[in-house]
């Protein structure tokens, strides 16, 4: 008997249909209802849950009352265990967090959630990175790679995970800062990571994922980088699960969320900031930057690695920037260019061009980066 948790953020997706951006913040929600928005996170959750019906007899769904999951589970044909009491009509982030916190205490195989970027952030801050999660996209501006591409895909992914056919990937949780976005300045933070199952068929169509292939790819990238490393050169390595795994393959520790600096095979700055990097650069002017596209949208600089600031980038120089990526991640962009958003418009323009992205040992993809 497997237990899965289900959390639906019933407000998610509210703003988009009526032309508002996002639905965090009570006043936006109110405006959306005034304009006649109908929450559809529940519908999306139902679409995904239907995929699990084949396991109905072996599955217990733990969820929250009413529109926080109970309705969706029942509509999909399950008899869920409902925790907590019925609450307000309009839920808040606090409700989501509280729900997730409670669920963390249960012995869950998987946590499914339906919502938007805000919901993913709430899941993470409630400790959701401890267990496998599958996100059903329902929000307007899905920037997090933790969401499946489509509610159906989320359902397939959950089913495959429960059948033991997937591997888990640390996947970035981002959030566009809503206020800044509405004021026209766009900047996203890297909040954390959730463990999301990875099924090759959505990327490659093969029948099942193999843990070996992913790690052997990363090993290959690590080997390629390792062979290029020079003594007395500082390596500034950006955040991300790929960079973490690769750095560890090279025998060095790495922070998942932060920028770290290395010299002669040892870490010399951990989870560092812009000013420390600038200082280090004066001591070690021969430096290289290693980054990977962050989040689901393909950003190289400016999402989650702002510590590698325009000043740092200028000091290192465009030709000493290395981008790494597994071929699967790259291929998911379907040929759309990667991009940079350092905040320095002139620098962004200068950084445009083609980069040989390291995708394996002696394997590169000449990929376009724009601003």
């Amino acid at each position, binding site marked *: 008997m497997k237990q899965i948790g289900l959390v639906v953020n019933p407000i998610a997706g509210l703003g988009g249909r009526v032309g508002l951006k996002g639905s965090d913040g009570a006043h936006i929600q109110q405006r959306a209802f005034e304009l006649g928005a109908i929450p559809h996170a529940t519908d999306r959750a139902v679409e995904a849950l239907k995929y699990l019906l084949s396991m109905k007899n072996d599955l217990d769904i733990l969820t929250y009352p009413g529109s926080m999951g109970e309705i969706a589970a029942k509509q999909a044909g399950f008899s869920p265990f409902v925790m907590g009491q019925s609450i307000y009509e309009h839920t808040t982030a606090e409700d989501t967090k509280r729900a997730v916190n409670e669920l963390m205490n249960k012995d869950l195989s998987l946590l499914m959630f339906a919502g938007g970027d805000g919901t993913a952030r709430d899941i993470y801050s409630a400790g959701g990175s401890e267990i496998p999660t599958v996100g059903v996209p329902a929000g307007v501006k899905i920037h997090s790679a933790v969401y499946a591409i489509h509610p159906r895909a989320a359902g397939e992914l959950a089913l495959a995970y429960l059948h033991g056919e997937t591997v888990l990937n640390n996947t970035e949780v981002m959030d566009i800062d809503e206020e800044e976005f509405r004021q026209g300045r766009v900047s996203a933070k890297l909040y954390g990571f959730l463990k999301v199952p990875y099924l*090759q068929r959505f990327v*490659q169509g*093969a*029948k099942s994922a*193999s843990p*070996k*292939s992913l790690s*052997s*790819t990363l090993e*290959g990238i690590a080997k390629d980088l390792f062979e290029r490393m020079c003594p007395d050169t500082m390596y500034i390595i950006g955040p991300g699960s790929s960079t973490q795994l690769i750095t560890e393959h090279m025998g060095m520790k790495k922070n998942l969320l932060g920028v770290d600096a290395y010299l002669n095979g040892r870490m010399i700055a951990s989870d560092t900031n812009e000013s420390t990097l600038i200082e280090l650069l004066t001591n070690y002017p021969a430096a290289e930057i290693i980054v990977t596209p962050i989040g689901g949208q393909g950003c190289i600089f400016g999402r989650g690695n702002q510590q590698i600031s325009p000043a740092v980038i200028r000091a290192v120089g465009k030709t000493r920037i290395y981008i790494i990526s597994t*071929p699967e991640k790259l291929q998911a962009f379907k040929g759309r260019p990667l991009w940079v958003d350092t905040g320095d418009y002139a620098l962004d323009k200068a950084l445009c061009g083609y980069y040989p992205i390291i995708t*394996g*040992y002696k*394997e590169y993809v000449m990929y376009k980066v724009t601003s």
Partner: protein
Amino acid sequence: MANNKTVYPYIPNSEPNIKAQMLKEVNANSVNELYSDIPAQLRFKGQLNLPAPFTSEYALRRHVEKILEKNKTTKQYLNFLGAGCYQHHVPAVCDEINSRGEFLTAYAGEPYDDHGRFQSLFEYTSMMAELLEMDVVNVPTYDGFQAAATALRMACRITNRNKVMLPETIGRDLLSKIRDFLKFDIEIIMVKHNPLTGGIDLHHLKELITSEIAAVFFENPSYLGFLELKGTEITEMAHSHGAICIVNVDPISLGVLEPPIQYGADIVVGDIQPLGMHMLYGGGQAGFIASRDEEKYVMQYPSRLFGIVPTRVKGEYGFGDVAYDRTSFAKREEGNEWVGTASALWGITAGVYLALMGPQGMKEIGEGILYRSQYAKQEMSKLENVNDGVFQAPQFKEFIVNFDKTGRTVAEINQALLGKGIFGGKDLSREFPWLGESALYCFTEVHTKEDIDLLVSAMREVLA
């Protein structure tokens, strides 16, 4: 180009009315419009300068037959050539099955519409597995040379080392292939042979072997025909240094000879041409690679490996690719080497052959071959100045005959034998100068006593 009004039997829509109808449906006035993406300067002007065609099937047949009939075959001449391609009897059922249209023209369907293809290849690998007593056998690669070269690379990947050892008695063609396939990143070290037996010189092997060696490779029987008598010692030495032992075998010998796994081989390779393929002027080759069922070995195969699995219907079984991810189909350049079209139909044929022969047939054919090659050796030893015992080791179907004492070259002798309707053994004099004027003679179950006596008496006449 002018409208081609000819209607071609192989091209159903070349009929002008059909063509016109189809053009209308794609909104084009002529086929030329469909090539609009090709820049004018790249368009070939005029027609290719090719020979005039034979449009009727009858004329085509006459033309091709006329050319092929210039050949003299091993049915017209008595053939004692071997050296990697062998004249064995091809059972009628083998030819029947590999000329069936479904097997002949299938390619890459799913395990549903091509279930028969998967099953017949699974059965081939399974029968080879019994012959070799190993649990993993690949869907065939191009030929025995590729099997050997790939096995050497596999050993390097498995051990993470980049040096391999080969006996200096391997054929120069195989050595050439291995050199081309390995030269970029793997060092080849040649090991001397024992002048008495031909086998690997154990002293030299001991001298050269280190813990940087990925693989020790030898053949049993050797390209030069003799059996390697020190297999156990060689594999032990390899293993004590952490190296993998690869042995190349002649599969048709395995009804009477011990499979190399029994004396310590880790990977066994070879060519299945003797198992039901005509010689085809060298076109009947196909390679096999076999190993134990260990993940670290399996994951290094570049070829397809078929596994048997249950379907959703109880009691029903189907097939699929094992660990598909390791191949270049799944991972492009990150896969192992590459995988592509190779020699599948010959694999199916070899399966038919082994099923026809069964354990008893394989025993009898091996025994019969030994009888005949022994007899031939004994008869040859009666010839003056002819040395049939260059190496003091038993052979399977081939052995070296040395003519130094006769004062004649192999080329001259073979020319003379040709005049008597005989294809003499392969001239080794350029390949192995240190063997002098030597030829490699091959005897199989196709040779009668009469055939062998005829060879010996012809040789006697030629040398007189």
